[in-house]
């Protein structure tokens, strides 16, 4: 976001375009690309969903393109852009996992394609064993449903445990902004990804053997 208003150039005393609207001429400024900045929130991993929702509705009212139909074409354009950023930002920030991935990206972590180097070996071992067990269950021609159900519950427990651990780490990072905590968080997110994958597998009744 530019610090100088595109409209009045910040010529008026006290004019500042660091917010959503220029403090001098009230013209709508281009949207912040950082989702936290857009919501006027500090970069943090723990968010109050109620507060976020309130901000979302307030901004929706403030930025609705209909409100700008009589304004300059540039402001109309910015209101459209802002409405789009608002929806994307809300979708990402309201989901704790998507939010954490977003923070990792902002903090320069590569969250795209990852290789073994980023996964603890004991986790791989564990995931492999779980997959083996699941496959054996699926191979059984008699009623495997109760066993699959048990496996699914076990994986869901693992996911809940991971979520609890994540929650703790989220709070720890918010308090300290220590980079090594983010590394731990990325490890936990990898683990969660594996586990949710296993839950999906265990949730679907095998239709072919």
């Amino acid at each position, binding site marked *: 976001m530019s610090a100088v208003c595109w409209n009045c150039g910040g010529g008026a005393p006290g004019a500042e375009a660091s917010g959503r609207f220029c403090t001098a001429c009230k013209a709508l400024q281009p949207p912040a690309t950082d989702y936290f900045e857009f919501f006027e929130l500090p970069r943090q991993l723990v968010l109050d969903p109620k507060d976020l929702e309130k901000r979302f509705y307030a901004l929706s009212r403030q930025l609705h393109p209909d409100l700008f139909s009589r304004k300059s074409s540039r402001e109309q354009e910015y209101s459209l852009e802002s409405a789009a950023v608002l929806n994307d930002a809300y979708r990402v920030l309201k989901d704790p996992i998507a939010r954490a991935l977003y923070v990792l990206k902002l903090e320069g972590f590569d969250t*795209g*394609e*990852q*290789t*073994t180097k*980023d*996964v603890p*070996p004991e*986790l*791989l*071992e564990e*995931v*492999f064993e779980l*997959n*083996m067990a699941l*496959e054996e269950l699926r191979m059984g021609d008699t009623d495997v449903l109760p066993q699959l159900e048990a496996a699914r519950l076990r994986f869901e427990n693992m996911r809940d445990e991971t979520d609890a651990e994540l929650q703790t780490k989220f709070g720890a990072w918010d308090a300290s902004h220590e980079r090594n905590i983010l590394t731990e968080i990325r490890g936990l*997110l*990898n683990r969660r*990804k*594996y586990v949710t*994958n*296993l839950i999906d597998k265990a949730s679907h009744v095998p239709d072919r053997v």
Partner: protein
Amino acid sequence: MAYSDKVLDHYNHPRNVGSLDKSSASVGTGMVGAPECGDVMKLQIRVNEENGIIEDAKFKTFGCGSAIASSSLATEWLKGKTVDEALQIKNTDIVNELSLPPVKIHCSVLAEDAIKAAISDYRTKQSSKVNTLAEQTVA
């Protein structure tokens, strides 16, 4: 997405599925994974300790068709090669052989990583064996 005939062949008739004795000094185990897609791949080699030739290779992969085909092909290629030759196998060789599309290149990377991990595990075991022998000799 359409898989190539070679991928389908390996997927429907995977070669060398199974496992080798993990605790044996002549066996190297590589376990790799891609968190993004939830794939996990185990690849093992059994090496003739006299001449360094890979006599057997097994794999087990949980993942998409391309990941299974990549590791299946890798085990085929490994057999009969020396450990040093095996290290020359590049993921691009797998991509070319299986005509993998760009979105599936990471599956071939996984297979290459698995080969390297298995060989590294084998070498670690061998060197610790040499050390143990040396210690015994000293004692």
